[in-house]
């Protein structure tokens, strides 16, 4: 499995640095966070660094009004065309034509199609998707096309809706899928049924023999390796590690209100505020919070050299780069040579994290709402349900 960057607010510097470190990589660009000029600049920088830009059209809701998002030419077509014009009318062709122009300017070579947020999955939703898919090859010159499948939280919780998508998608003439699922919470998912359905959906799409990219992921989605997903995308702020549709309605100058620096402890799958690293130091267990060298992140080294971690000038920049570097490595390590080995690895990761979290908590080190303690059982439950649903077919098809 690979990790792409999910572009969000303030990520230009992070993108350049991380692609330099990694020798390249994919970046899913966000028109909500970038003006046309910025899109052009960052796409050029990505390509210079041996990276691959993709463009997420973010056409999840026609009534979205985020100032930067609606400033893009293709978005103006989406917003101003009557809805009916996308069902056999000229708007589909007009939208894709403009997107193709944008894609050529940015050097995009795999094309994510617009996709509305399904709430619920319905014949209308399928019709919108299928009109775009039918029209797309005319505009993208034989290059790979990825259908966006964006499902609301309510749709994600319905097994029959998720399976209906898989069933229908089998007939779509695309080379892959870009899957975006509204999370039930602001960050870590607390609903095992939702997570099981994400695994079932992603694996069902993968079993169609196509490429599967899952956007807006956090470290909780390491489990997607068992679904044989090709790529997970993650970013800096929480609104690119989880999918909140309301962010496409926010005003331009909102964005991030809470600015606390969190240290990601990869072996605990949890994040901690720096004062809790001080507590760990006092308890003599700070070294146990250090990331394994195999994750290649030196961004957090200053925290482990200082007199006290919270005395170090270690801010968002370091924290984000540390998180994404660790996650990039974890993602690369979680898929094993068989389905069962990959599932076992995830259960091992969860058990190990659970033990580490327990020790940290016994010593007064707590992660608050980023502590993975409760998510351990959510992931376990979801994996167990998923293995029953898709295990036999995935076992046979694993390559």
């Amino acid at each position, binding site marked *: 499995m690979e990790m792409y960057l999910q572009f969000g607010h303030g990520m230009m510097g992070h993108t350049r640095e991380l692609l330099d470190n990694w020798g390249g990589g994919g970046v899913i660009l966000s028109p909500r966070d970038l003006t046309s000029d910025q899109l052009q600049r960052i796409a050029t920088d990505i390509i210079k660094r041996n990276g691959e830009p993709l463009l997420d059209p973010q056409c999840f809701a026609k009534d979205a009004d985020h100032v930067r998002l609606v400033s893009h030419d293709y978005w103006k077509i989406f917003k101003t065309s009557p809805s009916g014009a996308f069902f056999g009318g000229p708007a589909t062709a007009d939208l894709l034509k403009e997107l193709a122009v944008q894609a050529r300017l940015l050097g995009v070579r795999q094309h994510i199609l617009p996709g509305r947020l399904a709430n619920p999955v319905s014949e209308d939703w399928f019709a919108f998707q299928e009109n775009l898919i039918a029209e797309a090859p005319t505009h993208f010159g034989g290059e790979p096309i990825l259908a966006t499948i964006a499902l609301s939280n309510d749709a994600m919780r319905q097994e029959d809706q998720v*399976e209906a998508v898989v*069933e229908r998608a089998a007939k779509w003439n695309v080379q892959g899928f870009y899957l975006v699922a509204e999370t039930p919470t602001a960050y870590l998912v607390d609903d095992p049924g939702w997570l099981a359905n994400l695994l079932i959906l992603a694996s069902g799409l993968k079993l169609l023999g196509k490429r599967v990219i899952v956007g807006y992921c956090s470290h909780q989605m390491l489990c997607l390796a068992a679904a044989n997903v090709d790529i997970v995308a993650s970013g800096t702020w929480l609104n690119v590690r989880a999918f909140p549709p309301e962010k496409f309605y926010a005003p331009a100058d909102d964005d991030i209100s809470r600015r606390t620096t969190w240290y990601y402890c990869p072996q605990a799958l949890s994040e901690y505020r720096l004062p809790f690293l001080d507590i760990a130091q006092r308890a003599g267990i700070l070294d146990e919070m250090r990331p394994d060298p195999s994750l290649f992140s030196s961004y957090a080294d200053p925290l482990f050299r200082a007199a006290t971690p919270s005395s170090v000038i270690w801010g968002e920049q370091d924290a984000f780069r540390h998180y994404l570097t660790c996650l990039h490595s974890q993602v690369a390590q979680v898929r094993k040579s068989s389905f069962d080995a990959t599932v076992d690895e995830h259960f091992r990761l969860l058990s190990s994290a659970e033990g580490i979290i327990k020790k940290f908590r016994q010593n007064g080190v707590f992660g608050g709402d980023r502590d993975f303690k409760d998510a351990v059982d959510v992931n376990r439950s979801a994996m167990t349900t998923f293995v029953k649903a898709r295990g*036999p*077919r995935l076992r*046979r098809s694993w390559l």
Partner: protein
Amino acid sequence: MIDLAAIQAEFSELQNIKLLSTTSGQKDVFQADRGTKQVALKLIKRTQSDQRTEREISAVSKLNSSYVPQIYEHGRRTVSGEERFYIIERFIVGESYGEVLRKTPVQPFKEVLRLADVLLHACVDFENVQLVHRDIKPQNLMVDADGKIWVIDFGIARHLEMTSLTPSGPFHGIGTLGYAPPEQFRNLKSEEDSRTDLFSIGVVLYQSISGSNPYLNLLPDTMAVIRLMETQDLPQLSIAEDQSGELSDFLSVLTARFPSRRPQTASEALAWFDPIYQRLR
């Protein structure tokens, strides 16, 4: 009212025409002799649409399967002043698998493996001519005097290239409760293909191993049966002869309530089952 004399008069090439003790709602079925061969004569009632009849005949006549009785002749003839479709096909001397299960609800393991092999091969034959049987169940399987298994009664077969005759949209399609998968009794035509038959095959095999059809335990509450089939998969079987659980897994996949969770084609299902069969038989 069956007029055997009129039938004998029209089908003078047949001898000893006897009405079989069971008749379906769609056709009258007779046993007869044609020279030295025993044949089944099916007369299709006028209540059935001509298109459905012709489609059944056309679909099955395209089949080249050693598991389906050969059709010798078909056409239209007038009996008692009424034009009727007819089919003359090989008569299978034996008993239905339904009768076999009535006498011995839990079948010997190796016999179940053999049954699975036959049914999956038959399903591949159907798939090769884009045919879906849609009514595989113990009563539509015959075991002849030599122990060979036959699939009969393509009365509601669906030829995938032809426009479906059973209208979509209504709550219930055609099929037998307890053996038809959810997409069939919900009449979701676009989802009916070989996977529909694979589900039914899975249920027959499950019943043969466990001794009962767990869906039908909820009868006479039909809605309860439908609700169960739509919301829950069958419990995984624990089979003594299948220590590795691979047959049990395979049956779970065949009987998955969502078609996307089953093998996607009969060929895939057979390729899946074949090494299991080789190891366990």
